[in-house]
Each structure stands twice: as C-alpha cells, then as structure tokens.
C-alpha cells in the first residue's frame, strides 16, 4: 500500500482530488559542512478538497456514519476495534512494519521507539481494556445501545452520541491519534480527524485496517491532513459542523480552540501538561541494590519512552535527601539505566535546531544557581541534572531529566502549586505511611493520575485523561423517570 496522508470513505468520492505532498525525512546527521536537517523527502498521497466537500460531502458522511454506528451493537464495535488493535500488535503485520518505518523517518523517533509506542497504545486498546473503560464511565456496555434499567434509582437511562466529532491530533506520540477514533466509535460518534503535518501517516493506516476487514466502521471516520496556516477556513468549517471537538496541541492551539468553540459545542482540550515523580523520605532506605537499580530503570523508562515528548512524561523527579540513598549514588544508577535504554530504545534523531537548543539548554545550566551537577551518558543523548530548584524546572525533553533535591514535602508542594492547571501525571515512590498524605496533596494540586515509577507512559484506557471522562464527555444522556 502506498503511503497516504488521508483516509476518506467512499461517500466523499467526487468531493476531492488526489495529489501528492512531500514530507521531510528528518535526519540531522551532521557532517563536515553542517547539519542536514532534510535527508530527502517522502512522497505521499494527499487530498485536494473541493468546495463540495464541505457543502455536501461532510454532511452526508456524518449522516451516513451516524446511521451505521447507530445500527451497530457496542459489543460488535468493541470486537472490531479489538481486531484492528491486534493487527497492529502483530509484529508480522506489513502495515505495522510500514508504519514504524515511516514514523521513524518522518518524526526522527527511532524504530524501536515507534514500535514501543505502537505496543503501548494498542495493548491498552484491547477488548478487556475497552470494556473496562466503558463500564468505568457508564456502568454498563448496553447503555450505549438502549435504555438500561437503573433499579436503584427507579429509572432507565441511555447514553447517546453527542457528536459529530472533529478531532485535531498532534504528532508527539506515534500512533496516539487512533485514540480519538476509538473513543468516537465507542460512543457511536462519527469523526473527522485532522492529523498533524509532522506525522500524517499512521491515522490513515489505522483506518485502512477497517477497510481491509470490510468493517462498516471504515465508513465512520475521515482522516484529513492540511496545514492550518494555508487552509485556515477548513478548521472553521469542521468546527461548524461538529458538536464535540477534541484537540491536542500547545498554548497557541489551546487559545485558538478556547476562543473559537462556544456553547453548546463541547471542547475536549488536551494542551501542554507537566509530569513529575517523587521519591519520598526514607523510600529507598535499606533497599537492596538490585531494587534500587530496578527503580532507576523505571525512572529512566519514564523519560526514555516517547523521548519524553508525551504529556505523561516526567520533567523532574523530586528526591528527598532525608533518610535515603545518597543522591549522587542514586544518580549514578540512573545514568546506567539511561545508558541501558539508549541501547534498548535508541533516542530520537533531532533536527539541527533541536539539537542545538538542547545542547545550549544543558550548557546554560552550568550557570544556574541550584544546579549541583549535570550528568550525561557517553553519547550525551541522555542527561540528568542534580538541582535544588526554586521553581519547577522545565526539561527541553529528549531525555533530559531533573533530579530535584528536597527535604520537606512542603518544598515540593510549593514548587508545583503555581502550575496546578498544567499538572497531570505524577509517579510516586514513598513509604506506605506517607501514601495518604501524597495522594491527598497531589490530587488537590491538580494531578490527574498517580502511578508507580516506570508506569507513567502506560496509562490504562480507564484513566480520565486530564481528569475528564473521555467517553462520557462525548455522549449525552436520556433518563426515563417517573414514567408509569
């Protein structure tokens, strides 16, 4: 199959033309003369939308897809989604192989990282996880098909799709955009997805998998790729025709969507978020070396997965220096762990500008008050900074992790307090008697997921991303009550 940046169900035939675009292959191999950021281009199929795409095609698509989804039982939808997820977990699947190659070439992620990302994304998108997620939010599966008796409250309830949905994806996590489609299907919403120009390959591949197995779900999602700057009107038109908008992106995207989407439309926004971890007082005391090395590997894994570009990833691990292993000894373990992951999950290739910025960032830390030392692996592709911070230090990502010394929990809480709107994942390694304190404090500080070190990149599908019930937000309820 040729690489393509879009996927459009047959109902759009006649409303677009097929052309081609060239996507830069990211390669920053620096030779004698400088860094060549553009190691050739990859030619991929692209769409050229006609005016009728919006005036006729999109409306018909949404109507047709809504009818198809409405006719399907939720269990059948889950079975189909599970089938496609398993295809991408099958290491012999040619589409998976192609996706890994293409994602690596375009984004700079190593093939191992792209493969790991696909593994993580789809192993949390299997039937048991989907069923658990639906039941977690709705209490039953069938409530998405029909009215379900609610004996305790003496009523019947049904969750109906609130869409259509328009989803805007980012490129920072390979294979992540499938999640918007999966959630839309689980709530029986038709969905149009705008992929990122920085990684437009995977989402069309995902939808082609439905077409290959001749699933009617193949008619229920459209995947488009366009540059917002050059086609500003497209996004407005998609927003106008959708009721639910899911968007990932930075501050500029957050401001745009917040200003553009007004009630009764619903915005599910996933903007920049900050992750961190905490090694509490005495948590490592008297632990055998093997256990400490294991913990160091877990922390390194949190930072190495997705090269820290996910909102889930830690910028910093707070390390209580009271009653714990000497911090420099623990950092030595961490550096060995980072070396290990450089072998197992090789770091991403960076563009010249990114490479330079990361280097300049690390170099400038030598001048920063509070920085005790900067440790780097032999390749200099992973770094740990020993710091006593006065504020939350932001990593330039790409395997730069701060280890922040603290003595009292209040020091941590004071540092994270101004960022309550932006906190998300926190990894916690504390003594059992301190857990309740940290659970309470972190939840009140804005954290929306607490897990163990090493688990940051692998949330379950049940996680309420950014504290939002991802599925329930895409539905509206009808309750039958006091009906005799």
């Amino acid at each position: 199959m040729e690489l393509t940046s879009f996927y459009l169900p047959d109902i759009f035939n006649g409303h677009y033309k097929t052309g081609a675009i060239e996507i830069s292959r990211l390669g920053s191999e620096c030779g004698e003369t400088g860094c060549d950021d553009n190691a050739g281009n990859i030619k991929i199929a692209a769409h050229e939308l006609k005016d009728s795409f919006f005036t006729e095609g999109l409306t018909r698509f949404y109507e047709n897809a809504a009818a198809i989804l409405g006719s399907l039982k939720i269990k059948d939808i889950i079975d189909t989604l599970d089938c496609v997820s398993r295809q991408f977990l099958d290491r012999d699947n040619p589409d998976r192989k192609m996706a890994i190659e293409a994602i690596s070439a375009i984004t700079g992620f190593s093939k191992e990282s792209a493969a790991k990302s696909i593994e993580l994304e789809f192993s949390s998108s299997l039937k048991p996880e989907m069923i658990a997620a639906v039941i977690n939010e709705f209490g039953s599966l069938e409530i998405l098909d029909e009215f379900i008796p609610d004996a305790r409250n003496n009523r019947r309830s049904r969750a109906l799709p609130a869409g259509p949905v328009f989803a805007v994806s980012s490129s920072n996590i390979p294979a992540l955009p499938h999640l918007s489609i999966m959630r839309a299907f689980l709530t029986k919403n038709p969905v149009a997805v705008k992929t990122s120009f920085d990684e437009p390959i995977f989402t069309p591949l995902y939808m082609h998998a439905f077409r290959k197995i001749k699933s009617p779900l193949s008619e229920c999602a459209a995947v488009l790729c366009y540059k917002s700057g050059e086609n500003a009107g497209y996004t407005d038109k998609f927003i106008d025709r959708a009721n639910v908008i899911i968007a990932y992106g930075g501050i500029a995207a957050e401001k745009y969507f917040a200003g553009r989407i007004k009630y009764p439309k619903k915005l599910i926004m996933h903007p920049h978020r900050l992750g961190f971890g905490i090694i509490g007082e005495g948590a490592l005391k008297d632990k055998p070396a093997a256990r400490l090395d294991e913990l160091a590997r877990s922390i390194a894994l949190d930072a190495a997965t997705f090269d820290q570009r996910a909102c889930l990833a830690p910028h910093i691990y707070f390390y209580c220096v009271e009653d714990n292993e000497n911090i420099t000894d623990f950092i030595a373990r961490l550096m060995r762990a980072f070396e290990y992951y450089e072998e197992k999950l090789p770091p991403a290739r960076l563009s010249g500008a990114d490479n330079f910025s990361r280097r300049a960032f690390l170099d400038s830390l030598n001048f920063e008050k509070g920085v005790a030392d900067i440790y780097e692996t032999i390749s200099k592709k992973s770094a740990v900074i020993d710091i006593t911070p006065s504020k939350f230090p932001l990593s330039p990502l790409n395997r730069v992790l701060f280890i922040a010394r603290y003595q009292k929990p209040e020091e941590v809480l004071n540092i994270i307090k101004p960022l309550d709107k932006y906190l998300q994942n926190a990894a916690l390694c504390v003594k059992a008697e301190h857990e309740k304190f940290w659970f309470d404090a972190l939840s009140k500080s804005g954290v929306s997921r607490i897990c163990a070190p090493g688990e940051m990149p692998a949330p379950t599908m049940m996680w309420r991303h950014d504290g939002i019930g991802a599925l329930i937000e895409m539905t509206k309820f009808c309750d039958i009550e006091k009906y005799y």
Partner: protein
Amino acid sequence: MKFKQDDASVAALRNEIAAFIKTGGALGDKERSDKFNKLSIALFKIQFSAIEGYARYCVKKGVTPDNINDYLQIPPMPVSAFKSDDIFIYSNDDIYLTFKTSGTSGSERGRAYFSKTGAGLTSLAIIENAKNFMFPDKIDTHFLLVAPSPKAAPELTMAFGITEVMKNVGTLGGRHYIGPSGLNIDEFLSDIKKYENEGAPVSIIAPSFAMVVILDKLAEKNIKFKMAPGSRVLDAGGFKGRSREISRPDMLRSIEERFAIPPQYCINALGMSEVGTQYYDDNLKNHIAGVTAPATKRNPHWAKTLVMKLDGAMNYLAPQISSVKGALVHFDLSNFDRALAILTDDLGCYKEDGFEVCGRIKEGDVKGCSLTIEELIKN
C-alpha cells in the same frame, strides 16, 4: 575569585586591549591575529577565574587556562547564561550599568553587567567601530536618535551605544526623540525639516521597527524630504512584532523616497546587550572606498564572528563554507567584564569576509524548552 577593577593585572590587560582597539587595525595581518589570540587567552584566564559558572562550564568542555593556546578553544558562553546573576568578573558593588537582554527562548530576560571601566572599553569599541563603518567619510552630521536617552532607559543597550556615538563622533551633537509618551514624531519631523532647509547632513539612528513606523507615517501624510548629501540612516534590531515587517530592499526604497538618502548611506547594524561591539554592514565603507560588493556584516579587528555547526559538539564551520547556516558565536575583546566568547541563538552564515544573520534558531513546538514556567503561569 572576583577581581577589582584596579587590580594590576586586570588594569594592565584592559589597557592593552584598549590600545589594541585604537591602533590594532594598523598592524599587519599576522601580528594583528597573534595579538588578538594572545589578548583573548589572557582575558579568558581572568574570566575563567572570576565567573564560577563559566569555569564549571569550561571544565566540562575540557578547557582550562592551563591547556589553551588558541582562542578558538575558548568555550563560548550561551546567551541564556545571562539569566543567572553571576556573569561578571567583579563583585556586584562594581556594577555600573545593567543592560537587559532581549530574551532568547521564553519571556525571562537576562542581565548583562558592566563596570565603569568596562563601560569605558565598550564605549571605545562602539565609537571606533562607528567611525570606521558609519563615518568612513569623516563627515560631521546632526544626530537624530529615535531612541530614549540612557537616563530615561538605563537598561537599554541601544540607548547607551548610539548616545556614545552622538557624543563622541563629530561636533554637532543631536537629540533623542523617544520620551515618556513614546515617539515625538512632530519634533522629529520639525527638526528634519529644519536640517533639510539648512542643507545640513543628518544621521538618523533608529531601531528597525521604529524606522518602519516613521516611514509609514511619512507615507500616510505623503511627506518627502530632500536631505543634504552625506546624510545617512542606521537601523538596528529586528521588528519583533512591533511594526509591520518589510524586506530590506523595500526599506531602502522607502528611505530613499522619503528622505532622499540613497541605499549606500543606509546601514544595518547588529547589537546585543551581551556583546559590547556592534556589527555594521560595510556598504557605506565600501561605497566611500569605491568598492562594489554586497553589504555584509563586518568584524572590527578586536572581534571575530564564527559560525558554529548545530551538531552540539562545538565545532565551527570553515570560513569558506558560506552555504551552510549555523549558530553565530561572537568573540569580542571589549567584553571584558563578562565573557569574551558568546554563543547566540542567532542563525547565520559566513558571507564574503563577514557574516549574515538569517534569523533565530527555533526548536520545534513539541519541545518543552519552547515554553517557560512564566509563559505557562501567564497563560
């Protein structure tokens, strides 16, 4: 170990550098180059000893005063280091001037400290350079400075620099046209008209964005002046969202149309708070010398600008490679008080025997350092 301004070794080196700034241009190539190298290494040793963070950084790069014999080995200090408060070879009691940096990534601005003697050295560098590139014809002009005075804006390096030029080049002096309520356009136009009528040459010096604002106002009212021959314009800095952006050729056309000042007499300069020397285009110098060549930014003999590869390994591009862009690094002997080698986040390339600024090095949107905590909180 912080120094005192009157420490014998420090004062001796400062005087030697001042002498080199004044007279080094007359030396032969090899002698001048050797002298630059010797002075650079001597200054590096002082800065290494006095600035703790810089020493730590240099040691990480494997460079110490004991193992250096070429200025190219000196690790350039990243501009973002100026956000720390310790980039100064003297104690804080000796801070005479503080210039705020324009900020690199994010909103937090750094501070470049100058001692009284350091400010004197910087002033000397600014004046000598202006004489060479802005007044190669040695014409006396009236100065119209579209900037606040140093008293009104003590943290603005441009206000300091151009005022030093006004006070020390020629005899006619001039005035500032930015006051507490902004640009005094009426007074500016009134004075321009007066000098036009008198047939007196002027030097208009303005930030690039302010020049655009003035040109737009003149176009709006369809005002044109015919300034005396020998009049010139110096603009510096970028637009930074404070005016519409126009291309260099468009700006030169507008200046010629509105002031009758030809492009050969319009000079662009690069200045930074962190660097004492300003880097001028050589077009007027070339024009006066009868040389035809594209305008390029030139180093005076006490400074050198190199292009560093973006590979993170601190390697410089060879000067003959002009087709590849990299990060600009300025070595500047007038940076006596701070660090003589500065790694900027300006993207640039070699051009002719000088260099060209091509924009800023920007990291991708998904990268964390594109944000600062201040931006997040502000948002």
